[in-house]
């Protein structure tokens, strides 16, 4: 699914001053998405993935500041874009789908009105034409009786339908890029499968680039072309989806894969793998590897300085100083026993 690049982000940093210190929830993230490609940004809470997405959309909370070397959207540099430019781009060229459909839609307005508002903000279009376009998209996302839905309020729809409406709203202006932040986490598992298939289908039809932010590796496996793993505000591993899933290089990715029970593969009654400890707070500069406190392979040299992200061939990058050959296969078991 290689195509022309749509989005390029280099060196994104987000800082939030808090009492007496400066939090750095995002430290030097690089990200790129091409036409028709799905890039999954994977990580847990505190890794900075949501803030990265918000920064790309220009939606950071006021207290946060961000800096970056470069953000380009189809060649246009957005690094110092004015708020007005951001408003033009949002909804038009870049659309975002949020996690909780119950709070992302305005409860006071009908669906039809909300969709028309988006269209009329970015296009000169009559109400009638806006209505036509809205219906077209509601049908495309598989919503039954779309005419009725236009005059309904969000609370009258189920969670799955609301999420489909969100997707329809994201597609209204034919954006080049969609950022979906945990789009199915709040949905039931049978609905999740349907929504994900829908997203995939739409992407195949329109060639939209998709950034999928999630903590769920199962979702990633079914959807992503490329994976970007984040931990502690940094990118720790990048690569093709199947490649990473079959051969994770970063100890964190390894640990994640070992801790998920897979019916048929994980033996019932066996202990699950786990990563001991908790995610540390992101304050100040890095003086050593960010994962060192929880890593089974860590050695003295990991504490001497920050570890850079290095390319290891085949489009893979990893932020680890210990190559695969030097890793002790029993290390995880020993760590498990020690905890």
């Amino acid at each position: 699914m290689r195509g022309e690049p749509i989005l390029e982000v280099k060196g994104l940093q987000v800082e939030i001053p808090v009492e007496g210190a400066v939090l750095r929830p995002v430290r030097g993230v690089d990200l790129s998405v091409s036409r028709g490609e799905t890039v999954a940004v994977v990580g847990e809470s505190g890794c900075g993935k949501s803030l990265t997405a918000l920064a790309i959309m220009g939606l950071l909370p006021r207290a946060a500041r961000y800096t970056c070397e470069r953000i380009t959207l189809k060649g246009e540099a957005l690094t110092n874009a004015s708020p007005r430019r951001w408003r033009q781009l949002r909804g038009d060229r870049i659309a975002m789908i949020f996690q909780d459909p119950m709070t992302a839609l305005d409860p006071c307005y009908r669906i039809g009105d909300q969709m028309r508002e988006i269209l009329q903000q970015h296009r000169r279009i009559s109400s009638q034409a806006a209505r036509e376009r809205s219906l077209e998209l509601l049908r495309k996302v598989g919503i039954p009786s779309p005419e009725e839905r236009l005059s309904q309020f969000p609370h009258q729809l189920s969670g799955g339908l609301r999420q489909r409406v969100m997707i329809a709203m994201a597609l209204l202006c034919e954006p080049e890029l969609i950022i979906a932040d945990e789009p199915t986490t709040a949905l039931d598992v049978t609905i999740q499968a349907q929504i994900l298939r829908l997203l995939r289908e739409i992407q195949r039809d329109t060639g939209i680039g998709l950034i999928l932010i999630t903590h769920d590796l199962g979702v990633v496996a079914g959807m992503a072309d490329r994976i970007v793993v984040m931990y502690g505000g940094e990118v720790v591993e990048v690569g093709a989806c199947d490649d990473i899933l079959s051969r994770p290089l970063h100890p964190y990715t390894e640990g994640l894969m070992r801790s998920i029970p897979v019916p048929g593969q994980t033996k019932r009654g066996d202990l699950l793998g786990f990563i001991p400890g908790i995610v540390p707070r992101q304050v100040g500069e890095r003086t050593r590897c960010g994962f060192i406190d929880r890593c089974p392979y860590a050695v003295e040299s990991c504490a001497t300085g920050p570890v850079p992200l290095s390319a290891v061939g085949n489009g893979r990058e990893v932020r680890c100083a210990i190559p695969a050959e030097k890793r002790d296969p029993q290390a995880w078991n020993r760590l498990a026993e020690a905890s």
Partner: protein
Amino acid sequence: MTVAANSAAPTIDRSMSPGRVALRRALRHGSFWVGGFILLAITIAAILAPVLTHHDPTAQDLARRFLPPIWADKGSWEHILGTDNLGRDYLARLLYGARISLIIGLFTVLISGVIGTALGVAAGYWGGWVDLIINFVVTIRLTLPVVLVALVVVALIGSSLSLMIVVIGLLLWDRFAIVVRSATQQVAQREFIIAARTIGSSTGRILLKEILPNITGPLIVVASIEFAHAILLEAALSFLGLGVQPPEVSWGLMVSEAKTQLLFRPWMVAIPGAALVALIFAINLIGDAIRDVTTPEGRA
């Protein structure tokens, strides 16, 4: 070959209790300091009134009426703020009047706070019929114009400090009830309340130990608002002659007695007026600071 990260034995920072965290944040708030300072100054002045002035606020000296304050010509250090129409020392009246204001504020807040909180918690926790009935009672209370009711009661029964406290206390509980009710509803939905029931806590225990400690934020804010409200109400009643009676002193009474002098000796009205403004301002600043501090800002 793991590198041991934290080799020091971990201890817990005991100063992280929610109460202390809130206090620390309040102390960092500018308004809290300004308001707190003013309130403290007024309180200390009220307590130390006999030390700060040797005059008796009720002692009349008709030979020395309408003496001007120290900054006007003919003012003297003997009567720093001058004297009123009956020769009573103004500074003494100001200081002793502060006592009345503070006492009224404190005790009425206690009475109305207890009534309002009890009703609010009941309505918020049980909902259903209890909520309906209490809402009805609150609505009835809201239809009563407070000042008029106070007037009527006082006119019928006569006025004294304790009566005023009771009357105002019985009238100002509505905001407590409303705010506590919604705060209770929010807390009651949280799972630790269900957990408390499943471990066998009695309802009383749940209300006292689980619900009440978690609604102190809004409760304190309302208390500060009603404190100011009560003081103003007393001043208004005394101004109308239906509150504190002579020979007792009250700022409202001082303004009332001086109202005929408004154009000739404006300082007589301005001084107790300024004192009222300062006190209410201080209380509002403190209330603001507490409100900012107890507003949840996101998860720890």
